[in-house]
């Protein structure tokens, strides 16, 4: 297991093919998700620090309770600057 640094960040990511717009994520992680006019999630693209534990917990709840299993949390190491290839999926 990778060492969890205080400055690591994460983003919540959706598989748009899998997503059917149930919208549970917007209720479970309102800090990161709002729904478009058709009920599909628009996710915060800016990385959130893992240190923001409450937000991280919301994201994990959203992942766990997605009826379509369309969400995942991608962790990015703090340094060097986060790159997609360096991302880990929780």
């Amino acid at each position, binding site marked *: 297991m990778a060492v969890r640094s205080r400055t690591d960040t994460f983003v919540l*990511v959706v*598989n*748009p*093919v*899998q*997503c*059917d*717009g149930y919208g549970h994520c917007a209720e479970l992680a309102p800090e990161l998700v709002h729904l*478009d*006019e*058709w*009920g*599909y999630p*628009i996710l915060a693209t800016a990385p959130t620090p893992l240190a923001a534990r409450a937000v991280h917990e919301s994201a994990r709840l959203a992942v766990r309770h997605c009826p379509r299993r369309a969400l995942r949390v991608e962790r990015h190491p703090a340094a060097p600057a986060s790159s*997609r*290839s360096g*991302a880990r999926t929780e």
Partner: protein
Amino acid sequence: MPVDEARSLPRLLAGVLGQPASLAEHRARYGATPPGAHLLDELEAAGLTGRGGAAFPTARKAAVVRAQRGHAKVLVINAMEGEPAAHKDRTLLATNPHLVLDGAAALARAIGAARVVVAVARDEQATARIVRQALGERERQDRGLTLELHTPPWRYVAGEESALVHWLNDHQALPQYRPSRPSILRVAGAPTLVDNAETCAHVALIARHGATWFRAVGTAASPGSTLVSVTGAVARPIVVEVALGTPLRAVLQAAGADPEPQAVLLGGYGGTWLAASHLDTPLANEALGPLGASVGAGVIVVVPTDACGLRETLRITRWMAHESARQCGPCAFGLPALARDLQAIVAGGPDAPAAITRLTERSAAIAGRGACRHPDGVVRLVRSALEVFAAHLDTHRRGRPCAVGARRPVVAVPELEPEEDLVWQ
């Protein structure tokens, strides 16, 4: 080869357009492919980029697949040409099919592929016949390689590489969600390289003449020649081969198009409108990028001064919405909503000002949220239309129908098939 000769065009379209060269004629015209030990190095030095739309460096893409384990790799030649405004791959195959196949064979050997799949849309029966005939002529030519023709259904997104590979595996021409790029595509489990048909023809010529020859035309950042499909305000739809970096106006002249149009649509249906004031811009991504445009799939649609660009955009958007694979919500619901907003704007009723606001907001909400780039292309089209046709937009905003509304449409948009008739298998 002397420099003058290296600079002469056409390179890819030598011969009579639409008259497919037999293998013997092809040999007489282009000579045989020399055995190339360092093809990928030569492609890298040539700076060849993919001609299917993404303009990704061909050598780099090939090297990723070559580095994969195993010898049973697959090369897919993408001649799907789902872009209705493009007919350059079809024209190339109908003229020099063996040039494409030479390039395919050379690339296959370079990456360690034993199987080559040529993908031609099912509706393009004439092209499929030409390819089948050419493959038959080459039976003793490409030792150690299996070359096959496959005919997926013609859909706008069916030529997107993940959709094409998905069809080859499961007969579903649907784009796949690929969270990490570059991801390795696989046909029947084997690492797979997908390259556009025109790209392969360039490979065949670089294998013969080398990188320096290739760079004798084009710009430093965008070397070589490229095929351009010119349609719209033109005597007849035509494919021209030009050096990258040729000013757009010169491309229009070469195609016999209206030299003083209102605007051109560049790249494809999911491309960018450019006002006539930009026609001195070179056809090269380094020059077009700052304008938000790109060469794309080598498409130029010419719109004359007496047409309504908003109405043309509406017609394209409606069709693009219909061609959504309906896998992703923002695309499946968002694109028809954009079409409805455009409809309200073009109609010029009291709802027009609100529709302009909605269109702008919805475009922003949809961009980047599909598994493939289909919705992003429509957003690019719509946003550039609002800018380039601002004068028309103002007329419509004030609730007046457009003065040129009665003119015959310019862009040859295919008819909408009933939804239940759309074939994805």
